[in-house]
């Protein structure tokens, strides 16, 4: 009975040791992965910073103004002035369907039929 107990506890210790060893390595791998991702995030952020700076540089008002001037023939862009404002009633809406128009068509159709 006693020897059985000893064997059993020895095996339990070995199993636990194996489990701890495994967990340790898994943790280390996860940490390495996290570190790699952190570094990647850092690099991406740096890249993003560069892109943002470049975007701001390419969109600087001075350059846009020059580009608008160079491409005036194609784009026809002008600085915004007060006369560019309009009122809603100046906007051309599609014409409302006229019920009489349909009637006229029918009449012409009738006439053609008669002739």
């Amino acid at each position, binding site marked *: 009975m006693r020897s059985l107990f000893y064997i059993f506890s020895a095996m339990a210790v070995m199993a636990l040791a194996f489990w701890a060893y495994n967990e340790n390595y898994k943790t280390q791998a996860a940490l390495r992965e*996290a570190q790699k991702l*952190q570094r990647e995030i850092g690099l991406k952020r740096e890249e993003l910073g560069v892109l943002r700076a470049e975007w701001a540089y390419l969109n600087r008002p001075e350059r846009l103004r020059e580009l608008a001037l160079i491409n005036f023939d194609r784009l026809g862009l002008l600085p*915004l002035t007060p006369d560019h404002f309009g009122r809603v009633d100046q906007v051309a809406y599609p014409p409302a369907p006229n019920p009489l128009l349909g009637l006229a068509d029918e009449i012409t159709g009738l006439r053609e039929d008669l002739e």
Partner: protein
Amino acid sequence: MSNRTPLRPLARILEARRRGENPDAIERENIRLRHEEQRDRDRQRAEGRLLTLGVFFICVFALVGVRMGMLANSEAAEPRAAASGAAILAQRADIVDRNGRLLATNLATHSLYAQPPMMIDKARSARELVKIFPDLNEEWLLRQFSGDLKFLWVRRKISPEQVQMVHDIGDPGLLFGPREMRLYPNGRLAAHVLGGSSFGREGVHSAEVIGVAGVERVFDDYLRDPANGGAPLQLSLDLTVQSTVAEVLNGGMRMMNARGAAAVLMDVHSGEVISMVSLPDFDPNNRPNPPTSGTPADSPLFNRAVQGVYELGSVFKIFAIAQAMDAGLINASTKIDTTSPMTWGRHRIRDYRNYGPELTATEVIVKSSNVGTARVALQLGGTRQREFLTKLGLTEPTPVELTEAPNAKPLLPRNWSDISTMTISYGHGLSASPLHLAAAYATMVNGGTKVSPTLIKQNHVARGERVISERTSRTVTDMLRAVVSRGTASFGDVPGYAVAGKTGTADKPRTNGGGYYDDKVLATFASVFPATDPRYVLIVTLDEPSENSGREPRRTAGWTAVPVAAEVIRRTAPLLGLRPETEALELDLITLTANR
């Protein structure tokens, strides 16, 4: 303890009785022995407890000490397992405009240094380096490399292309270090507001970026504070408006042959500076060194809008009139004696033209009568005038967030006499910056509450202290509107925006002291728009302008600063989201038909 002796052992008692001794002595002796035994036991137990406790404390203190030592001696490591939330992106936060567009950011670049002992072909390296950086001196470089120097900075900031080119030289003694560089993508735009930056403490692996002027300097601690998690600093400037104002002002400055120009556009309610331009300007990416000779005011680094304290001339007249109206001394239609010249002691005050014996208060402003304003100011007296100007912030440096601001203290007369009161009422004898004027005008027209200029975007602004009543503020705005519709600023009218304002043409004081120049003026136009419900104040100042299209040069603000300001308003008002008001236009048409 187990063989406990009885206190009165019978054998010894009998023995003692037999010998005729007192048997009680035996009992006492036994009690004494028993007590001694007990005391020894107690002492032993207490000693054991003390020992245990002592050992325990020593262990704990040793543990704490060892841990402290470990923490102090180990290299700091970033927590690897923690998730990266708001990580520190850069050592310095970005600066953005009110719509979140970038004004200043960081860029990772490289620095180039040399370690001569590790170099192989020094002559060739020097030759190749000069090819890449033409401003380096080959001889000097070679001398440095050949000497006993162990370390030499070659370049502080180099571009990625240059890194590649230096890399291609292939000398192991030429090394790169990472550098974070401050970049202002918009170049000269808002240069005076941003200021500039440079490197502080430098090492091979990093360098500290510090602000040297403008908001970069004032908010240096904020921008470098890691606790902000890289949140950008949001200014009140509007990039588009700033660019437009700079463009128009630059054109205007050239057309009017001016030496310099400044413009401030401010929100009348919050005091936010939407645009601040000072010309000539500079590129903050490559900030020039402060001048060592000549007047600092001629340097492009000089911010005319904030640092330039000038006698601004007639734009001050409205303050005297507004104060008198608020005090109930006059109203808009009160007749004021304008007999020119007015004599006071040995001083004589003249008007530009003689406007007859009297004018109404509105006409005094519209025609810009020095004599009329001086008489009103005299009624008020110097003490009250000074109090009022202090309330408007015209006697103290502006609280705007620029390093230059606290030094731009208005110049006041040493002795505020009656003659000072009179001259100050029409803008001579007291020097202030265009920014001071902008804040004071904002206070005048926004309903009469004090405005403090700021460069930081405000989300909510509490009403300032009341300076003039709402009614006076309304009347003042109407008077200023009359100046544009039928007075000295008639070129300032922008259809649809009901511009109101006041011109000021001040003779420049001679630099060598004593008197004023005849042919050098400072032309200022302080404008407000739209007059129906004032939203923005625009100050345009031209330094020594002269409009040469006529037979003789015209220098008055009405011919120089006003047309420039009108163009600025015409271009920026739509950008600020203001609709032109068409009602006023229709009214004009009706009057026209009626006149016919």
